[in-house]
């Protein structure tokens, strides 16, 4: 084993393929034991939900706002049956279909929120950390000021500001995504800024300065490319938080109207009254969907974090070798 790796080093090292260097994939190859199990469970769960979202029109038997088929109403709060396998809600919708369509809403919000906040947060963090000065101080104060707000409260305020509280499909998704973005930008800002401040003192950045490279070149070529290491981790953790915030908004009635899109938080809210009368199916399925999606993303995030850190990464234990003298 040792011998083989020694000879492999002498040959020109082959660059690993792009696919195997992607975040998550790279970690999957490095992991062993429990950490690998956690990562695989997370990837499978998350992948399942992504598939559901993409194939929703094929999987869901009915539309998310469909309450009758062939002119016959489903009926309200019907228990699971052959027609409605997970029963129907108090509004007369099919629970199974709404849970499936709900993945689409959740995924859209997560993607928009993460993309928006990652771009703004990273750019602001880079500029603020590298240039410093008064701009840095102002941005840090603003980020600090946003931090102590309860995220949900901030999201509610943003949602009211953006849509006035009621919403269509696009408006609802956007307002949810933007309100989440406002909370996430300071997180990316902070992480990238602290990385940039650390990198600024590194010898390779100084060597670029000595060479005479322009500030923009140093910032984007030398600093930014090295400051993004921790981002995949924050993305996965933030994605799970985005789902919770979206569900929270829906639960409190600031979400998307049931006729515009399916949304788990809203369904949970409507199912609140049912619990007392023993109607379990309206609440359990959207609730389980939220828990599993968040669990999947968190498992991916946490295990990627542990595996990327050489101090936390588990390795195969060495077994006593039989004495084979070569």
């Amino acid at each position, binding site marked *: 084993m040792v011998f083989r*790796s020694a000879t492999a080093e002498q040959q020109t090292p082959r660059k690993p393929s792009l696919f195997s260097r992607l975040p998550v994939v790279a970690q999957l190859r490095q992991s062993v034991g429990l950490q690998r199990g956690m990562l695989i469970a997370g990837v499978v769960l998350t992948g399942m939900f992504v598939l559901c979202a993409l194939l929703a029109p094929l999987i869901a038997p009915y539309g998310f706002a469909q309450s009758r088929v062939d002119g016959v109403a489903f009926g309200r709060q019907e228990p699971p049956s052959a027609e409605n396998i997970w029963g129907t809600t108090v509004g007369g919708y099919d629970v199974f279909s709404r849970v499936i369509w709900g993945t689409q809403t959740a995924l859209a919000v997560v993607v928009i929120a993460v993309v928006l906040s990652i771009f703004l947060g990273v750019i602001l963090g880079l500029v603020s950390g590298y240039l410093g000065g008064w701009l840095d101080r102002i941005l840090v104060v603003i980020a600090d000021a946003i931090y102590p707000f309860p995220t949900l409260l901030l999201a509610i305020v943003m949602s009211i500001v953006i849509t006035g509280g009621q919403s269509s499909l696009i408006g609802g998704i956007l307002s949810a995504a933007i309100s989440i973005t406002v909370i996430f930008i300071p997180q990316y800002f902070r992480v990238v800024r602290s990385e940039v401040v650390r990198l600024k003192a590194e010898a390779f950045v100084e060597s670029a300065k000595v*060479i005479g490279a322009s500030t923009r070149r140093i910032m984007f070529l030398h600093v930014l490319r090295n400051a993004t290491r921790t981002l995949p981790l924050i993305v996965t953790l933030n994605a799970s938080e985005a789902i919770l915030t979206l569900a929270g908004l829906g639960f409190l009635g600031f979400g998307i109207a049931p006729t515009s899109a399916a949304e788990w938080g809203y369904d949970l809210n409507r199912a609140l009254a049912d619990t007392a009368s023993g109607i379990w199916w309206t609440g359990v399925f959207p609730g389980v969907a939220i828990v599993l999606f968040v669990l999947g993303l968190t498992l991916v995030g946490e295990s990627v974090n542990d595996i990327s850190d050489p101090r936390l990464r588990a390795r195969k234990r060495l077994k006593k070798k039989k004495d084979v003298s070569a």
Partner: protein
Amino acid sequence: MSTVVDIRNLGVEFATDAGRVTAVDGMNLTVAPGEILAIVGESGSGKSVTAKTILGLLPDTALTSGAVLLSNREGQDTHDVVQLTGERLREVRGRDVAMVFQEPSTALNPVYTVGWQIAEGIRAHGRIGRRQAKNMAVDILRRVGIPDPEKRVDYYPHQFSGGQKQRVVIAMALVLNPGLIVADEPTTALDVTVQAEILDLLRRCRDEFGTAIVLITHNMGVVADLADRVVVMYQSKLVEQADVETLFSSPREEYTRTLLGSVPRLGNGADRGPAPAPHSELGTPVVEARDLQIEYPGRLGVPAFRAVQGVTFTVAPGEVLGLVGESGSGKTTIGRAIAGLTPVTGGSLSVLGHEMLGIRESDFRPVRSEIGFVFQDPATSFNPRLTIAECVAEPLVVHGRAKDAGAARSRVDELLEAVHLPKAFGSRFPHELSGGQRQRASLARALALEPTLLIADEPTSALDVSVQARVLELFRELQQQFGFAALFISHDLAVVDMLADRIAVLLKGQLIEVGAGADVLGAPRHPYTRRLLASLPVPDPVEQRARRAELHRLRSTE
């Protein structure tokens, strides 16, 4: 014969990402009571791992085989450390064997007083009262040469200097009177003059306390100064073991001979070739500092720190000026100021005809193509996301000599060839190169624009001796080939002696002596230079003994 530690067929393997890695293989070693055994070798040769095994300090990922039989001071009680775990291992540590670490500033806990930290070790091994433990701490501090120990026992680590901190660490190791101390590079983080004092203290540990010492070091001068017996390790294996005189006078193995041959020695600078032209004939100086002052601004309420005060020197075209000084002497600050990385706050510094006092970055940027810089740590001076070729091409691209890294490739190949690196290395990433190879690439990058001035800030201090020798050789070769002027910054007099035409000695931000290399090293005028020279241990035990006596004489006359 009784032994303090008897290592039998020791093997250590680590589980890493790259699979199973052997760190120590088939090691056999004994240490007699009161003996100083030095283990030498390059980084990665397994010397530190061997030392840590004696204390059972290896991480969970290690698999140890063989036996490490550790006896207590009286020699009645023997344990196999490899088999010990938990409480039993804890009993042995500190009582039978103690450790002195490389970096004294991180080995001490900054939030407790040193007295508390010494007492902690005492109280962990028996029912001893707080007051009595403190008295023992005071006593041991006095014996390791801390002045005024009654008062200073209540000081925190930051109130001591680096050398004193190392004394405290040694006091902690000595306090339970163990039969063996393992010292892992105990003087590497210290300045030469402080190193000499710590070596004296370690020698006293043996003479007064009768403690055996296992000394891990890569510095052959330290070995010659302190050790009774030497073990040479190479690629996880024991290569040679002999007593110190035999090893230095007639090394048996080829590897030991190479290792000893690569150690830079004072006085070897004489064979530099024809004597350089007199200083005044070389034309307009490339760098001219007059009464140069550099201050680092203090925080609110703290006065500014003056790192360099009133320094005057010149560097002529094609000349190598060696800048020598201990840590904190301001040598790196001067180098950074010349490269425009640290602003000048007073006096005058003229670089290639540009006054650096109050210069704007945009005015200085074009001048940068005339200056090359080699950084101390090859591990961090390359952007880890760029290939070596892209890194070396960077100056060419920035100054518009090439459109992008691809267009510069033929020039990059030439440069890599000039520093004796294969072309194929261009497509590797920095972490795929060894330290020495990276430092060559760093030289290639600095020379890409054929600068008139090269600043080298401790370019070899992070490298192993044998690698250092090759890089220094290359530096000299390139200097003769390209004829650039160079400012060579180093704390190692022997290294500077190999390369520099003239040598400038700095002490606490002031220039105390400057002159031709042979003059400064041959007939130093300033007492500090004399002490610096005498403190430098030479890799020859017989000569070193004479030098030690000379150093003691110097110290007593001061």
